[in-house]
């Protein structure tokens, strides 16, 4: 009598058509292929390594500190200031009959140009310390009369440029911490531009004329510009001590100050209420473009590009390998519903990529940030919710790219073609916009 042979049965539960089993199968396939695990680890590692490289390679040691405004944000506070102290309440009035700007076009070649946000006018400022609170009324090259305070607030006044034929009169009145700006086209009919409350303004403040001239954008960089304004009919009322006007360049060593073009400098000419003032710089929030010693979280995460390449390769391979090794027949025989197989693959791949990307980003950012700070780089502060969004977004981007590669791989069934298509589509636009003579409209379209 032949012994009964019990056929081998897997200890696992029946129900092979369950989606969870399918997910488990795909996860096992992913986990046991050495290449895909290495690829994911490489992706996370690239994000971290590039952040470390960016942090360690920066060399801004000893650069002056970035001025911080009243709201705690980094600011640019560099301009030419013709000032004297005002104790208590008072007012100051002036007319501006010209505002001309020059932009360097060569090493020793300065040409008249338009700097849209060149500013000339009146300012009441806590002190000559950079980042101190202020309120100002000014004429600008292309944006009419403006009243601005504390680096971030801006109110529009009379429109139109200033010239000898269209003189602009400006007035600032201080009453406690309330500062009111008026503008006029003739010196008799005044229009109120606005009243602002500058909190923390001490009884004695520095008040006077200022000229600022922001750097003009040139492709990917900026160039310092210089502007000159003609002030007339300067009149003051209130607690002035009768001293003389002092001319100072504010923030000459500030990292956000591009400096004066060659052979120019800040200066003033005149007396008795008529002054010609030349200045450069800007009074505004500091941004990445004007702060060479600055860095952002995005800069630290440039390694995402490298990680993209790794996850695209893994994503495409996860399906094309099955085609090449004919494993796809086994997979589809085991689970005949093909779309479910693809969905399971996408879920496993997307999840693993997301986790790897998240780990990479959350390790990379604090490390890179610490290294960069140690090297004197100013990292723009962001809310922790933004930090979280950047990390999650990076991970989601990587996961999406991996799934895109998986889909293209399924369409092409050919790993090299799939990888190249997805890579070229993802990375090439960045190479192209880095090209200096791409017009802005095309660059914008490509990055959208």
């Amino acid at each position, binding site marked *: 009598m032949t012994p009964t042979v019990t056929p081998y049965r897997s200890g696992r539960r029946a129900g092979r058509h369950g989606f969870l089993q399918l997910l488990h199968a795909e996860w096992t396939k992913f986990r046991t292929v050495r290449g895909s695990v290495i690829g994911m680890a490489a992706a996370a590692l690239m994000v971290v390594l590039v952040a470390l490289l960016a942090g360690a390679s920066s060399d801004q040691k000893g650069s002056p500190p970035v001025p911080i405004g009243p709201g705690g944000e980094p600011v640019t506070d560099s301009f030419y200031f013709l000032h004297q102290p005002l104790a208590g309440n008072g007012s100051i009035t002036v007319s501006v009959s010209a505002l001309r700007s020059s932009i360097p076009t060569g090493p020793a070649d300065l040409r008249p140009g338009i700097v849209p946000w060149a500013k000339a006018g009146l300012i009441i400022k806590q002190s000559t310390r950079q980042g101190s609170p202020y309120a100002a009324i000014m004429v600008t090259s292309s944006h009419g009369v403006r009243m601005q305070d504390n680096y971030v607030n801006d109110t529009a006044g009379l429109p139109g440029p200033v010239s000898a034929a269209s003189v602009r009169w400006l007035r600032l009145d201080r009453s406690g911490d309330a500062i009111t700006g008026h503008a006029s086209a003739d010196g008799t009919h005044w229009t109120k531009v606005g009243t602002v409350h500058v909190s923390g303004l001490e009884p004695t403040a520095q008040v006077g004329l200022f000229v600022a001239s922001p750097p003009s954008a040139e492709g990917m960089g900026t160039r310092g510009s210089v502007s000159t304004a003609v002030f007339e009919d300067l009149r003051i009322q209130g607690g002035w001590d009768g001293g003389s006007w002092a001319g100072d360049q504010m923030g000459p060593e500030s990292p956000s100050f591009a400096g004066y073009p060659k052979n120019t400098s800040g200066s003033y000419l005149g007396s008795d209420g008529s002054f010609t003032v030349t200045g450069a710089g800007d009074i505004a929030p500091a941004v990445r473009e004007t702060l060479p010693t600055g860095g952002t979280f995005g800069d630290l995460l*440039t390694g995402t590009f490298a990680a993209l390449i790794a996850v695209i390769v893994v994503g495409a391979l996860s399906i094309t390998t099955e085609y090449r090794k004919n494993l796809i027949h086994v997979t589809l025989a085991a689970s005949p519903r093909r779309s479910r197989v693809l969905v399971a693959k996408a879920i496993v791949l997307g999840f693993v990529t997301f986790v790897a990307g998240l780990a990479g980003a959350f390790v990379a950012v604090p490390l890179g940030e610490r290294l960069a700070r140690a090297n004197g780089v100013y990292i723009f502060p962001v809310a922790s919710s933004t930090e979280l969004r950047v990390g999650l977004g990076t991970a989601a981007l990587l996961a999406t790219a991996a799934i895109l590669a998986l889909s293209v791989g399924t369409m092409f069934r050919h790993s090299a073609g799939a990888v190249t298509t997805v890579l070229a589509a993802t990375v090439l636009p960045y190479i192209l916009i880095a090209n200096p003579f791409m017009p802005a409209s095309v660059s914008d379209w490509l990055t959208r």
Partner: protein
Amino acid sequence: MRTVAGPLWLLLGMIAATVALSAGATSVVTCTSAGCGGDMTKLSLIGVELGQALVAILAVLVISGEYSSGMIRTTLTAMPRRTIAFAAKAITLAGVVAAAGTLAVLGSLLAGRFILPRHGFTATRGYPALSLADGPTLRATVGSILYLTLIALLSLGIAAIVRDSATTIGVVLGLLYLLPILSQVIGNPHGQRLLQQIGPMSAGLAIQATTNLHSLPLSPWAGLGVTAGWAAAALVAGGLLLRIRDA
């Protein structure tokens, strides 16, 4: 190579992609009275930045295709001297890519020649029509063809080292496209310049520059030399590994 359909399509695709990107790029620039700026030869040849990706696939498939289909064993049985088999592949590939590259580069230049004058780049504004009679333009043209050939050889060498096609493509494109992007995060200007000097793409494409030569990280021919060095190193390493490893 002649009998497989893929390479022919890839070559045609490479020519089409190169010319299309060049024509696209030249048709969006405008020359206004405020200034034109830029190097028109380099702009006309920008398609090479895309075409090289297709050249890389072609080169990778020449060798990885044989590994994945097991054909490599047949090849090596027929030609047991592996180095010679590899060299033959390299020479055939170089010849084919050079021929197709010539068509692609000349096509791009021709597109630039026809399109640019319509966008204000006329001789009266100091932009004569692109012509091979012009020394720097000729150098850029010949150099771009050589560059594409070198990229093919570099990819072939890496393919022989890595063997898997997708991974090879990842490595090659990473090497080409990633270094210029990474060089932008390097805060130190010297480090940035160094990375641009050693990157096979940023160095090699210096050959396309015809204006502002002194601002380049390194001179045009030296740049192409760097790319050639990369290609030679990859080929030697690939050839050696092919010899000592089991197929």
